[in-house]
């Protein structure tokens, strides 16, 4: 049979937070454009309020019709790119058919452009590495570079080229380095430039499960052996996904669905999955994972999981070019255990480069 083209790749890692070489922070902080965060807690009836509070405190905005040359103006770079951690991603643009623009917290302006826009804009870039035979070009401009200031040839060239391009709608979130500065300053900045900028509300979804079977997971065993004392890592990921979509319980009705909880399992009286949707800054994910590790130990939970979905139309998945072929998956899940070990799942599209 002809080999089937994969629709997705899965990178699984098992390690511990105490391991010197582990890279959980790198995984979280380089995944810049997050569209949702979901938390699953077994044997517990509510997700700690702190996550909701953190989401409310983080201010995110929808900005309409931003001219791209505004992003390279000195006011903007000094006031926001250098003075804090900025996440900006174009909204309503599809990575496989449109031009997409984003600014990473590291201060990199990344543009994934169609062939005609790329040829017209006149900036140096490279062919996107996400997938073969796609005519998308990636242009990167380092806004934090020492050589990027008005008066230099390169700056003036970029400024002129960007001014020739169309305007974009953006989703924006900004966390200032200085705690005394209000994150809403960015809204004022856009308003003074007569650009429509409105605050976004995060959407919350809850799935509650009562008297529900949960898999028994041993952090040290990732693949089921003949004795079947714990579940396979891929079955666990599928099961977490089933909880996240809110699987229907057909009570053993084999006609509609043959899916069941992986074995061995045990019954839990209460489980909860809560998901927040919006543009989520990576540092929120970092803070929350730290909080949840302690919470899990205090409440004596067998494990807990945090899932972050990246924007499917993000020009980057981690540090590599991102594309859309059937799907634009760029997801990671931390399955954490009370002994500080964790399982990390990273799911990406079939044509993307493994991080």
């Amino acid at each position, binding site marked *: 049979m002809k080999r089937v083209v*994969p629709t997705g790749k899965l990178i699984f890692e098992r390690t511990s937070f105490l391991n010197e070489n582990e890279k959980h922070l790198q995984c979280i902080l380089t995944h810049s454009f997050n569209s949702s965060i979901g938390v699953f807690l077994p044997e517990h009836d509510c997700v700690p309020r702190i996550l909701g509070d953190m989401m409310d405190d983080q201010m995110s905005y929808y900005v309409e019709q931003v001219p791209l040359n505004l992003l390279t103006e000195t006011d903007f770079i000094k006031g926001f790119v250098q003075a804090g951690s900025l996440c900006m991603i174009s909204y309503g643009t599809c990575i496989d058919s449109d031009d997409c623009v984003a600014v990473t917290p590291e201060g990199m302006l990344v543009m994934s452009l169609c062939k005609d826009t790329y040829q017209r804009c006149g900036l140096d870039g490279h062919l996107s590495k996400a997938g073969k035979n796609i005519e998308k070009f990636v242009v990167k401009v380092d806004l934090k570079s020492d050589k990027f200031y008005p008066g230099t040839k390169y700056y003036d060239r970029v400024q002129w080229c960007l001014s020739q391009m169309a305007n974009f709608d953006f989703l924006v979130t900004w966390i200032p380095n200085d705690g005394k500065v209000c994150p809403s300053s960015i809204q004022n900045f856009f308003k003074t430039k007569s650009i429509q900028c409105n605050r976004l509300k995060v959407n919350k979804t809850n799935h509650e499960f009562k008297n529900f079977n949960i898999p028994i997971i041993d952090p040290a065993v990732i693949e089921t052996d003949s004795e079947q004392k714990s579940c396979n890592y891929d079955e666990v990921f599928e099961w977490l996904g089933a909880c996240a979509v809110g699987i229907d319980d057909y009570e053993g009705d084999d006609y509609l669905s043959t899916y069941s909880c992986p074995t061995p399992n045990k019954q839990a009286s209460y489980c909860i999955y809560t998901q927040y949707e919006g543009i989520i800054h990576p540092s929120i994910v970092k803070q929350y994972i730290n909080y949840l590790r302690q919470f899990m130990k205090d409440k004596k939970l067998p494990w807990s999981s945090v899932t972050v979905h990246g924007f499917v139309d993000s020009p980057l998945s981690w540090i590599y070019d991102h594309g859309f072929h059937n799907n634009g*998956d760029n997801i990671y899940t931390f399955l954490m255990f009370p002994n500080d070990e964790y399982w990390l799942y990273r799911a990406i599209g079939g044509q993307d480069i493994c991080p």
Partner: protein
Amino acid sequence: MYQKIVTKGSTDYCYLKIRLDFGKDHDAIIDALNFKQLILSAAKDVFGIAVSCSLIDVLRYEKSSRTAVIRIYHKYLTKLWSSLTMYGNINGAPCAFRILQVSSHLMALANNSRSMKLHMVYDG
């Protein structure tokens, strides 16, 4: 202690989020059982009994929006996708299956940033 496993080849299963739309002036109440029946008949019409006998699990069904999350074998993805595309009529009522999301990870269907609705707070 460090272990890493990378899965790059085809995975066993594929997950789809699909919605059934009716034409203008037509509507029908479809429950989960009917929905599965429709998928089976769509597959049977085009590719015969072999494909319709393969695994098709309805993991979640929302009656109000006629949206379902289904699980199928990865090797039947193209066949099932094409048969759903070609299905266009239920007892004389024009209809169409819309494939909203396709992924080899069920977790991916928990969120779709392309259809994300923005809720804005207007503060004068």
